[in-house]
């Protein structure tokens, strides 16, 4: 994830309120802790 998508994701997460802290920084696909690309699954 590049810096631009990171920033957009952060703003989106913040606007939703009460978003868990982790998701604010890791909005991507996660399975069993693995940080994956969409095409991985």
């Amino acid at each position: 994830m590049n810096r631009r998508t990171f920033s957009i994701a952060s703003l989106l997460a913040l606007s939703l309120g009460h978003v868990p802290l982790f998701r604010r920084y890791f909005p991507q696909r996660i399975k069993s802790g693995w940080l994956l690309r969409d095409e991985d699954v």
Partner: protein
Amino acid sequence: MLFDFAKGPLTPEQQYDVCILGAGAAGITLAIRLGRAGKRVALCEGGGLDYEDDSQEIYAGQTIGDPYFDLDIARLRYFGGSTNHWGGYCRSFEPTDFNRGYLGDDFRWPISHDDILPYLAEACEIVEISSDYRDRLVDEELGLRQVDFKYSPPVRFGEKFQAEIESSKNIDLFLNCNFTDLTGADRRVRSVKLRNYADQDLEIRANSVVFAMGGIDNSRQLLWMERLHGGSFFDRDLPIGRYWMEHPHFIIGEALIKSWDQANLYFALTEKMQKALGIMGCGVVVEEQGDSTTKRLIKDLLCVAPGVGAWAADLAGKKLICSYRFQAAWEQAPNRENRVALSDRAVDRFGVPQSELHWRKASIDRETMLASTQQFNAFILRENLGRLQLRDWVYQGDEYPDDDILAGYHHMGGTRMSYSPRYGVVDGNCKVFGAENLYVAGSSLYTTAGYNNPTLAIVQFALRLADHLVKVV
């Protein structure tokens, strides 16, 4: 000269230029530099030349808040202090550590990085490392850089400097001398009172006094002086003990990474990226793991993402992929509520209340780790180097585990340096606000903690304080 108070009464007659309380990295560095400059120094150590239970138990205390180490094992109380067991990791503050105004007034130092930089080369020489730090920008867009650590042998300050101190005409080392009180009036300290383990007392007169008793006891003893003497020696209502900091250390995950030559290295974000993200400093150590870990991770990845799992398995068959462990060590925000306080439940053998350490990690501390990890992960994914698996507690947002590394045994803040007595205890010259001749040395001075190990900077700050004292005493 060496005087051991355990061997009988001592009656020093002379007036010293400087009395230093505590003979660890800060106290010894200070004594050596002052002695070489011709100043008469009394260096007072609560312990002896070797570990003794009688001395070590003075460090007992309670912790309240997040899981932390027992205070009587988190440091050593004899000649050389905690350099008798430090690991030797050396990296000093960075310019950005003094430029964190974007995070608020609590982060503002009264000095700049340029004030300690002139002492880096000499500090490196003392801990026997090169001062040629070579960081490398890995990716500008993601703000990722590889940072250079140096490793001291590690130098045991007591062993290294004992002979010079014993033979010095200017330095008198007093062993088994436990600080109990100050005398004086009108904001000026006249003498320090010390006691041995047979309850015999000793008084040393000095033009200036330096507390160099460590990142917890500097606070404890200053709080005790405030309780005994109110505002006799320094301003009332200073935030003594407050803004105490550690470096959280946790294993955050493991990764499968292909054909990488970056193993066992240390990474951090650039100053620009830290500011853009509104976070502090965080280092990520990447350590190569064995074949069994690689097999376990591939098996796991095959279950959750068969395509990329098969890719990893294929590379593993060609010995082109390895497993790595990711360990993060990061900066903790200065938080007024994290503090050393005087216990109302227990006192040490000299009647001084034990330490009560209140310590919790805040949301911004966790954000610093998460944001830094994400930038690092973004690099791995963009370059298709592999995949990172975070520990459960990280991605599930759970509490920090209590069976991990926890912290670095780095005690910082408590008597921090500040531009204002509202936010700190000492000024830019390490002098306690309102005092005429009372100073502090050691990592309790740190206004912010950075993310690097504190010892090298302790030496830099001690050298700088010595230069100041040479001018004023």
